[in-house]
């Protein structure tokens, strides 16, 4: 073997050894002293924190994503029921009108010198029968919570008004804001000093563009449906809208998103569980269970997620923080599974049951969940100001090109009365609206009338 060949072989050997020893140092020994991590230090650089601040600014539409300050319906009153309009979140005009309405609400609720006057039911109805906009909320808010969500601190209102779910803004001749607690017969009015030109403009544009292309809308108090009628002594909530004809709504498909390992790990992080230090196993039936010292998370194949926390933390949340916590978790889960459906609040916190509930919105309408385990898409329970459990049925809903027309209002009312009268002597309908009924089975759902009855009186 000649000298050059030996040199070549030696060179190859030394180069290979160089790589082997270098790799060993790089991956096993690390080139930095123990405790120093180049990659984690990048996150502490100032430029990185600037980037994160910018990113979180654009991500910080959590509140609107969960729509827990959004009404489920806006009714534009014109003084004439033939031109009265109803908008849901799927309508293009809904958000622009809502934004202007909130500006008016903020003006009304930010000045503690403006007096709040208690008014009669009749005066509230008069407002709805004149030029005004009615915001129908899916849940009752405490005055304190509503003010904080709006971003104000209106002490005067929080001292006098307990809860409400109906708000109206009249804009002619003057701008006034009305809050209604229908059940307890309490109504308040706030005169806003400034005009609401932008709101009036938006409303005008909407009315003009939809001329003649909509059913006639009456409130049930207009038709005396809020007084007992029929053999079954049925009453409707006075603010339920009665439509002269039915409209078409898209069919939706409910899907159970695939939860692969990456998605599950990201969901764990939402609940501040460390995927690297917990136990995980699969139960019979395919439910995946994650166990940490102070919390358990279960997700089954049907998309049912259940989080339970056993340990307490020193932080005690107020009503507002409880709501933002639940919304933040729900947003996180929906973002992780890339679900575009927004959620709406269905129940705010009350001391009686300590539960906050959210439901999905699909095609602008509420998805009314009616499953064995949950009656709302999200149910979160709090005890002593701390989150104890969070349950969610993970779903995504897509609208299809198919449309169906539900029963007309009066026909639907007849059907509901005849069903309930089998078990009730008196029927008090507190909500009746178009939505989607979901029994947690996957597949197509058509828009239907959803009727909520206040109380149950067993028939003889």
């Amino acid at each position, binding site marked *: 073997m000649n000298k050059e060949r030996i040199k070549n072989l030696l060179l190859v050997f030394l180069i290979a050894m160089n790589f082997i*020893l270098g790799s060993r140092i790089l991956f096993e020994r690390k080139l930095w002293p123990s405790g120093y991590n180049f990659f984690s230090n990048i996150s502490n650089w100032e430029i990185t924190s600037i980037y994160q601040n910018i990113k979180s600014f654009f991500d910080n539409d959590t509140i609107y994503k969960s729509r827990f300050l959004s009404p489920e319906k806006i009714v534009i009153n014109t003084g004439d029921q033939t031109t009265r309009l109803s908008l849901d979140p799927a309508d293009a005009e809904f958000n622009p009108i809502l934004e202007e309405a909130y500006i008016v609400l903020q003006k009304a609720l930010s000045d503690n010198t403006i007096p709040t006057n208690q008014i009669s039911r009749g005066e509230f109805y008069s407002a709805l029968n004149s030029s005004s906009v009615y915001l129908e909320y899916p849940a009752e808010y405490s005055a304190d919570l509503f003010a904080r969500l709006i971003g104000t601190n209106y002490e005067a209102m929080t001292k006098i008004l307990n809860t409400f779910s109906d708000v109206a803004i009249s804009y002619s001749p003057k701008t006034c804001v009305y809050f209604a607690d229908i059940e307890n017969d309490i109504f308040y009015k706030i005169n806003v000093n400034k005009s609401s030109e932008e709101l009036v403009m938006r409303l005008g544009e909407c009315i003009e563009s939809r001329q003649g292309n909509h059913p006639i809308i009456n409130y049930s108090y207009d038709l005396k449906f809020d007084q007992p009628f029929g053999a079954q002594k049925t009453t409707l909530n006075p603010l339920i809208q009665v439509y002269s004809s039915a409209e078409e709504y898209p069919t939706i498909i409910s899907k159970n998103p695939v939860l692969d390992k990456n998605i599950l790990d990201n969901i764990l992080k939402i609940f501040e569980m460390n995927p690297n*230090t917990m*136990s995980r*196993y699969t*139960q019979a039936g395919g439910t995946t269970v994650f166990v940490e010292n102070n919390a358990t998370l279960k997700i089954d194949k049907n998309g049912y997620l259940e989080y339970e926390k056993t340990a307490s933390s020193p932080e005690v949340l107020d009503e507002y923080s409880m709501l933002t916590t639940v919304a933040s978790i729900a947003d996180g889960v929906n973002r992780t599974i890339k679900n575009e459906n927004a959620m709406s609040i269905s129940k705010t916190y009350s001391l009686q049951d300590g539960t906050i509930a959210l439901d999905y919105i699909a095609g602008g309408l509420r998805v009314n969940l009616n499953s064995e385990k949950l009656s709302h898409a999200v149910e979160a329970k709090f005890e002593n100001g701390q989150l104890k459990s969070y349950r969610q049925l993970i779903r995504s809903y897509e609208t299809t090109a198919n449309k169906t027309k539900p029963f007309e209002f009066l026909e639907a009312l007849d059907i509901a009365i005849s069903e309930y009268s089998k078990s009730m002597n008196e029927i008090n309908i507190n909500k009746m609206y178009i939505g989607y009924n979901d029994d947690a089975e996957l597949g197509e759902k058509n828009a239907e009338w959803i009727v909520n009855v206040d109380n149950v009186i067993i028939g003889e």
Partner: protein
Amino acid sequence: MNWSKVKSIMIAFLILVNLSLLSYIVFEEISDNKRISKMTDTTVSLLATQDIKVDEKLVLDSAKKKTANSLYVDNVISDYKSFSNSIIGGEITSVNADKYKSENGEVTFKGDYFSAVSSEGNFLYREKITKSNALRISEKYLDELGFDTKNSEKNITEENNIIKVSFNKEIDNLPVFKTGVTLQMNESGIISFYGSWYNISEQNSSIAELKSISGVLVEYMNKKSGASIISDIRLGYLVPEFGTFHESVLLTPVWKITDDNNDTVYIDARENN
């Protein structure tokens, strides 16, 4: 260009570089060993302040382990009824949610644990069995039932004409604590069969960095009260939540620390991130 000269220079350079790298590695190894030894002394002294004694050699041996796999395993039991059918056969009836029987025997379950017993005169598996063929027959029987016993510690004993063959599950040469099966047989066949077993799943495994043994022993010290002598420290795996049924489970490394009273404490071996 004189390539021969260039090669010579490169060879000399590479020799220098490799020697430097090698020296660095050797130096780090020596430093590591010194550090581990010092840490061991400190740990042993700290435990002694709480009346806990441990052999330094045990700690030193344990300190050498830096990583272990976390991996998924599947329970051999997919559902109680079909598992019972595969062992005892015949007309299976359910006594309750955790017990099934047939004319050939009965199977009782608690979580992942099962216990199968043959009826009088019947055998779970009939073949002429001696101590010399007991292991082969047991492996064959378990293989037919879907148990992967390739990597397991095996043990055979005989007493009062009953041969016992035990299989203790191992993964990557580490024991899976509280997991194993035992078959009891006589010369006519297998009389009873009990335990729990998992096969390695197709799901991905990952490498877990391990906590330092000092940290583990400090955790042990905080959990233990009273004087004791640590007789064994062993790295292995443990299925969480004993008594609960697991269709599949992520096995993560744990340290099993046993004292002279045979009390055992299991501590999660993974580094917290």
